């Protein structure tokens, strides 16, 4: 009798294991590629970024995220970053909305390169802050450019998108979250 249980043991262990696998695979909304950011639902870090000279928009600081009661989209970009160019049209779309703040953090870039890039492609951002040494980027947990954060009107980070916005991401991910946050207000 005992022996039979012993011989059934491998099967039982396997069944439990497969139960786990099945659970993990079918759990709705689980995307293994998304590493949860520790910053989600945490207040945005303190920072104060200087303006990009001759661009015509001011720099910004932590206070500008909460000053006007709007949801903010903070986009990390750089002139050397090719995917940033790919998502640029989406930024232009976002920049046309005046019910949100679109802020750009110019990450590890030379000011003249950044200026050229924005003049050539158009500046969608309402404010642009320079982060040449990635001090602020580190506080935001940036590990690749571009990244896009959505911050609610109280200055809490609500969403983080790593990498460029792919076709569909704006309509399916970013805009619904913004609408949602605006509705909550």
């Amino acid at each position, binding site marked *: 009798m005992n022996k039979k249980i012993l011989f059934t043991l491998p*099967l039982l262990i396997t069944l439990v294991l497969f139960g786990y696998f099945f659970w993990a695979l079918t759990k709705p909304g689980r995307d293994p590629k998304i590493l949860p950011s520790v910053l989600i639902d945490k207040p945005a870090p303190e920072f104060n970024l200087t303006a990009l000279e001759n661009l015509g928009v001011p720099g910004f600081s932590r206070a500008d995220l909460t000053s006007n009661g709007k949801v903010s989209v903070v986009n990390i970009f750089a002139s050397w970053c090719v995917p940033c160019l790919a998502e640029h049209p989406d930024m232009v779309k976002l920049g046309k909305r005046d019910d949100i703040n679109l802020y750009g953090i110019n990450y590890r870039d030379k000011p003249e390169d950044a200026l050229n890039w924005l003049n050539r492609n158009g500046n969608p951002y309402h404010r642009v802050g320079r982060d040449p040494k990635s001090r602020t980027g580190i506080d935001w947990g940036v590990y690749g450019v571009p990244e896009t954060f959505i911050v609610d009107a109280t200055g809490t980070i609500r969403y983080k998108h790593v990498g460029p916005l792919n076709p569909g991401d704006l309509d399916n991910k970013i805009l619904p979250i913004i609408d949602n946050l605006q509705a909550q207000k």
Partner: protein
Amino acid sequence: MIAELGQFAIIMALLAAIAQSILPLIGAERLDSRLMAFGGQASLVQLLFVILAFGCLTQAYIVSDFTLVNVAENSHSTKPLLYKISGVWGNHEGSMLLWILILAIFGAAVAAFGRNLPVTLKARVLAVQAMIGVGFLTFLIFTSNPFTRLLMPPENGRDLNPLLQDPGLAFHPPMLYVGYVGFSVAFSFAIAALIEGKVDAAWARWVRPWTLTAWTFLTGGLALGSWWAYYELGWGGWWFWDPVENVAFMPWLMGTALLHSAIVVEKRNSLKVWTILLAILTFSLSLIGTFIVRSGLLTSVHSFAVNPERGVFILFLLAIAIGGSLTLFAFRAPSLKAGGIFSPISREGGLLLNNLLLSTACATVFLGTLYPLFMEALGGGRVSIGPPFYNNTFVPVMVPLLLCVCAGPLLPWKRADLVGVLGRLKYAGLATILAILLAWYVTEGGPLLAILGLGMAAWMLLGTLSEWADKIKLFRAPLSTSWQRMVKLPGSAWGMTLAHGGLAIAVAGMISTTAWKVEDVAVLKPGETISVAGTDYRLDGVRELVGPNYQAVEGTFTVSQNGEFMAILKPEKRLYNVQKMPTTEAAIYSTFVGDYYAVIGDQVEDGGWTVRIYREPMITWIWFGCTLMVLAGFLSLADRRLRVGAPAGKRKQGKRKQKSQQNAAA
């Protein structure tokens, strides 16, 4: 047109596999020799159709046929030919087809080389082999069809992931798959034995060469993958405990155990049930590995495109294969007759200890790999486990195993005298103490654990050598006698000595490079020098390069020690045109005692370049040791004793056997 031919071929292969998985089983039950023989023919037909399908897909890649989704997403017309071909298996669908191709090759090989197999066993093995084929062909056709057409073909493809455009990675997957899939034969033999209700020495003798083949290729595949990670990722280091590395490593650990336990079944007709279970588990781990890489269950740098639907499909396949075989095991294994008895201290006992330690080691890797998933299931959030976990669990299990490696082969069967065996190792022991003192002197009293670790590696090597010297009576008989004994040593004995020696050398490399690795990062302007571990690296200059499908910056370093020139290193940083993905091409100067490794990074604001320099002591020993192990596998395979099932070799004996089998079958 050719793609449709490929599509047709995989469907035909599926039909052949379905017939092959049913008819020979019925034949074996009714002792109908025609139905049983059908298994062999069907396996050949199945192989031909799979080869045809694989050829069609390869052709589509070579001519850059972007009307196929698979080609458009993973290839590009400017890619060098080698990478067009390796691109076939650089993606989910194509690599699945490669998997099936290798499975079919093994099936047909069993049919071709297994002429001396008992006919019922052969029929059942082929049927089980075909069942695996049915599962994966169904999976391919219904969820991962490589021949799907695009309605609006793009002008050019999306290119292969640049990290995979590397000669090392071109050959790594096929080798790994031969290893993974090769264990299917051991699995099929185990299931067939459970159906027959009979496991004997002959069974083990047939299983061993197949397991050995799979093990040899898996060893090679793992070594190649680790070598690729070392020079291509630009992180230095050779093993990262990444989930995908782990899932390939687990079948290796289990396969190593299987290789050793099959010896006990063959020689002593003992440990039969355990060996059957190992054969099932080894292949199950291969399947689970395939599943984890493709389902996106765990996050890893290696993952293919994630598709949960596909994941559920494979999970069901696995549930049927693994659950089914373990159910069969639960019912049938208790009735298998137990074999010879042995005392704990004996060759059998040693091999059993080897098995227990290897299985425990495998279990720790398994837990570590899946722990993040369990944590998540229990609501603990997503975590990841790094090297510290494995250092605290895996390493302590491996240490006793490695210490015993050289003592095992000295133990006689049935009952052994431990004191006597250790006495035969006294010279090896003395030499080990000398080696430890030498290591202590050379490293100027480096970390104690690492020095003891090197001592352990020396003990393994010296003990293995002294066992070999013992066998040929070196220094105890005239040299001519020793020479004759050496020449007459069977391939499997050479294989054992070489494999254990190779392992010792690899372990020495692993320990040294882990303990004494030095790395430094700096920003250098051309003309500046950085000194790492007593070696100077001068950045002579940086220039831009244009490759066939990438652009690159290339740095030139002059490496010197105390003003004496050693080497020129030219690391590159490439940006691939299509995927816009940067890759590092490290430059490495390898010597016997260590590697000098340079990586060039981005340019910083003041015009300097970020460079990383690594000094990796004795790291090449790892791959040298692995090469010896692969060589050992082939040597052992060449042993006549293992070719009982082969058509050539001991012909007379073979004929006699065949006759008696035919009589038995009739």
